[in-house]
């Protein structure tokens, strides 16, 4: 996902090139889907949210100005879309599902817990069960995407200190839960 390529594709989209639209969609779907699962953990909603983002991108292509990063624009409007959906739906029911899935996956987790201590692998699905949405998001952006703290704080609209805190408590809580199993 080279930012210069992205801007080139974006210029073509602005010129109503539908092939460019498809290309961008394919390029980011995978990434946004995983990001979405770390935020909301509902697959259907995540897909809807991605479609909303691209719908907005296409419908507003003449008005929209993207200066620096297409990816940043996509991430920003994607998280807005996910949070809007989450607000309107009942979060309780989602949490219920996870508790169920947690039960069936405990065998897998206990294997992971036995892995050597200096190897910490976060699994997106399991993260959803033990971490808060913001901890999950910070960890995803830091360790999946490799964003630096400035980018994370900008995207999540929180102070850098808060980013460190989320990462730290996220790691700690995840490790504790792995050991319990």
């Amino acid at each position, binding site marked *: 996902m080279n930012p210069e390529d992205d801007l080139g594709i974006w210029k073509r989209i602005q010129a109503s090139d*539908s092939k460019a639209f498809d290309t961008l969609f394919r390029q980011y779907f995978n990434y946004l889907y995983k990001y979405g699962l770390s935020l909301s953990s509902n697959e259907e909603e995540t897909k809807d949210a991605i479609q909303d983002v691209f719908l907005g991108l296409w419908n507003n292509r003449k008005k929209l100005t993207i200066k620096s990063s297409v990816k940043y624009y996509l991430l920003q409007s994607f998280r807005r879309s996910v949070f809007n959906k989450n607000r309107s739906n009942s979060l309780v029911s989602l949490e219920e599902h996870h508790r169920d899935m947690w039960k069936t996956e405990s065998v897998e987790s206990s294997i992971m817990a036995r892995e050597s201590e200096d190897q*910490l692998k976060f699994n997106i699905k399991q993260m959803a069960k033990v971490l808060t949405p913001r901890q999950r998001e910070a960890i995803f952006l830091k360790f999946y995407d490799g964003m630096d703290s400035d980018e994370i704080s900008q995207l999540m609209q929180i102070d850098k200190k808060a980013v460190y805190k989320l990462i730290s408590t996220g790691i*700690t809580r995840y490790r504790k839960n792995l050991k319990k199993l």
Partner: protein
Amino acid sequence: MQKKFNHIDDLLADSYFIEWLCDPTEESDAYWSAQSEINPNLRTLIPFAKNTFNNITVEANEVSNTLVDTALNEMHRTGKVRIFNFKTAAFLKIAAVLLFFSLAAIYTLLPKNEFSTEYGKTMAVDLKDGSEVILNANSKLSLTNNKGKAIDRQVWVSGEAYFNVLSNPKSPFTVHTSRGDIIVLGTIFNVEDTPESFSIYLEEGRIKFVPKPEYQKQSIELDVKKRLIFSSSNERFELQDNNDPNITAWKEKKIVCQNMPLSELSKEIEAYYGVDVVLKQDALADRELDGILENKSLDELLLIVCEALDIKVISSKNSIEFSYY
């Protein structure tokens, strides 16, 4: 200040340590080397914690290409994204003009203007003549193109739809289905036309059903609150008194359960949301529900069912499994 660090977890739980790993400064470098002086433990713990931190990975299942394709196709299909290239658009205009002249005679007979719903969605369509149609999930309504002509009151439906037809004795309203035509003078009724079942339920007014000749020659008149079904076992139409409270509940996004067994409810969920429902234990099929279920979202619906029956559900993308705890 003196902090206790006996294990790498103590370090990782310290957000100042995390800050140092993410964004080291001269100040924090100095701080942590001073800490190591005081606490020799840290000389081994710090590199260990650093290594753990740097090796952290996030795993997620890969997204299948099919899912990407489906998601992209959905966007094109819903028509919300009207995508043509300029070249294609010009070509389409020319093609449309040619088509208009060459096919003008039969053009008006072809179904045009399609409305379709995906699984889990319903849609209200206002027709030009003032009639209203509510489409159930996974259904399709087609209208004729009647630009510049007297309003043509005929529609094609597949799936399930609820009609509220404006009365106009001069111009009957016709609904074409796969098994025959419904001729209407102004009335409210529900049509279900799917490969599995066919039924017409009349709520108000009067309608006449003209079956396709291969099924039956004479037409059938329906009275209020009667239901016409097509029995696929003997390939005949049958008139019944309606005793299914659910028949038009779907349009209010409700499922009315009167001692409805879970096996029945599962069918409703399957039809509406396009998922497979599995009952892990056979005994679950006969568990009954009583009450009105609001069909807002699948998640909510499942939660209510589980609470009512004290069972659990595991749901994944395309399937739902009910089981005992």
